């Protein structure tokens, strides 16, 4: 193990390491802690200039209550959910199929199709912006949730295919061979042999897609406009305009907006990390 395990080092370094950890963490998360403290302060603290001092009173319920009951925040959260979950499902379905096709079969254009997905996934969003916005307008889906979902599914399929294909390639190929010798139909091999083995990869992908899509801002701005379809990342700017200079409410709103992916991460940590490393680093 590198660096040297702490229990094999001197007593003094052990103690200072233990002390250093929380200090480093607080320093690292300082900006976030500030927002968390802001979000439970009363607004008088900001008018009297008590930005960084101890809150003069704790207004957790009042501030978060305002976010949930006196703003469009709940609607934005709902929109985000209605965008994120179908995208997740769509990506999992499409990419388990493409990943299976590219990971199991050998045919001449295999690598080219794979590279098309990978390259497309790395492309800057801006080169897609004008045509995708046009396409969405033409389909009558501009400023609707399905319009955003369809694009997200298509674009994320690139990343997911990369991930699934690599995962399937690492599976023991004998299993598939055995099934073939037994005369099992190919689609049954997919459904009964490969799909059950892909469960961890599917979970990893689902969490990652959830986070990516929940946090998407660019496409939300390009393809949606109003409170009826905008997700929370775009909504928070209008929220902030509504509560301009009300730092306690803006903080509370930001925390609410950021929470779902954080919860997802803490619940599914193992899968999340497996996904981030693209399955390449085990």
């Amino acid at each position, binding site marked *: 193990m*590198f*660096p040297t395990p*702490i229990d094999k080092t001197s007593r003094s370094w052990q103690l200072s*390491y*233990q002390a250093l950890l929380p200090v480093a*963490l607080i320093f690292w*998360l300082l*900006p*976030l802690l500030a*927002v968390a403290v802001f979000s439970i302060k009363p607004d008088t603290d900001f008018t009297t*200039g008590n*930005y*960084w001092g101890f809150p003069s009173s704790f207004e957790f319920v009042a501030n978060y209550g305002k976010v949930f009951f006196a703003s469009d925040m709940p609607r934005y959260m709902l929109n985000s959910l209605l965008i994120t979950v179908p995208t997740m499902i769509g990506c999992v379905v*499409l*990419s388990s*199929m*493409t990943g299976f*096709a*590219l990971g199991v*079969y050998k045919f001449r254009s295999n*690598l080219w*199709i794979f590279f*098309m997905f*990978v390259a*497309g996934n*790395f*492309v*800057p*969003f*801006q*080169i*897609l*912006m*004008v*045509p*995708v916005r046009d396409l969405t307008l033409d389909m009558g889906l501009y400023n609707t949730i399905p319009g955003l979902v369809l*694009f997200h599914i*298509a*674009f994320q*399929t*690139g990343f997911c295919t990369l991930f699934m294909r690599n995962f399937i390639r690492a599976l023991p190929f004998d299993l598939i061979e055995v099934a073939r010798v*037994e005369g*099992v139909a*190919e689609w*049954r091999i997919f459904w009964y042999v490969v799909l059950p083995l892909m469960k961890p990869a599917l979970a990893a992908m689902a969490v990652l897609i959830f986070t990516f899509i929940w946090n998407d*801002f*660019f496409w939300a*701005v*390009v393809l949606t406009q109003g409170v009826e379809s905008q997700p929370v990342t775009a909504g*928070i700017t209008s929220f902030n305009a509504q509560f301009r200079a009300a730092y306690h409410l803006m903080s509370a709103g930001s*925390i609410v907006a*950021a929470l779902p*992916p954080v919860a997802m*991460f803490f619940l599914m*940590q193992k899968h999340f*990390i497996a996904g*981030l*490393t693209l399955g*390449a*680093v085990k």
Partner: protein
Amino acid sequence: MSSSTDAPTNSSWYKRNEISVTPWLFLIPGVAFFLLYVIFPIFSSISVSFYDWDGLGDATYVGLGNYEELYWDDAFYTSLRNNLIWLVLYLLAIPAGLFIALFLNQTVTGIRLYKSLFFFPFVISQIVVGLVFTWFYDPTFGLLNQMLGVFGIDPINVLGDEKYVTYGIIAAGLWPQTAYCMILYLTGLNAVDPEQIEAARLDGAKGWRMLWHIIVPQLKPATFIAFVVTIIGALRSFDLISIMTNGGPFGESRVLSFYMFEVALSEYGFRMGYGASIAVVLFLIMLCFIAYFLYSMYQDDKGSR
């Protein structure tokens, strides 16, 4: 599952060609979707960049007109310069992530929670990161200037000063990106071969020499992914700029992706053609990296099977 199929002599065309047809059946939905929303739009953007078009009326063919205008456009060069600064400075996330990973690669109680909390900034949306850092930099109450005040330094309006603004935004972007690289290296460090480390220790290697000659080479896969995601992250920077400065002051914090959006879809006008030409330039920059990534993946692939 039982073996139900009999000898395949008189079976259907599908049965006989199953192995060669099945992959295509599985590929069609995904590929069709991807072509429609990603691949075709790339080419259609390239073609739009030769037109003058407001997005609604008729488009007029102007040949290389948009590119010629780019050539004389100062804002374009500002954006391009900022893109380069982003690219170079964003790479700092890689060593910074490695450093934190090494710091956290221990087995003391509660270390798992520490690792998760250090990773935290990556999970929250860039919109929130941008907001948080805007307040951090605020000249009247921001924490940064409070701290500078302790040392008797006058407040700096980071986001309002054209000298500092890009660096201020990059620092905000480095925060989540470093967390990402850290997690890549933490997983990578798990896979480092303990025998090699022991052998190197016996040979008297330690500290930096150990890190550089024994550990870093074994972290190559993690470094590759860190490099890929950092480059892409740098060239995609849009959210932070949009939230923190909206391109200002005086357009000094624009990058190509932001400038493109501004030209094509904001109150400054709907110049789709001109916007598309900026996007094409950005795409060409990215293409160099994409080619390199694909080439490395291709080399890997040849080796593996």
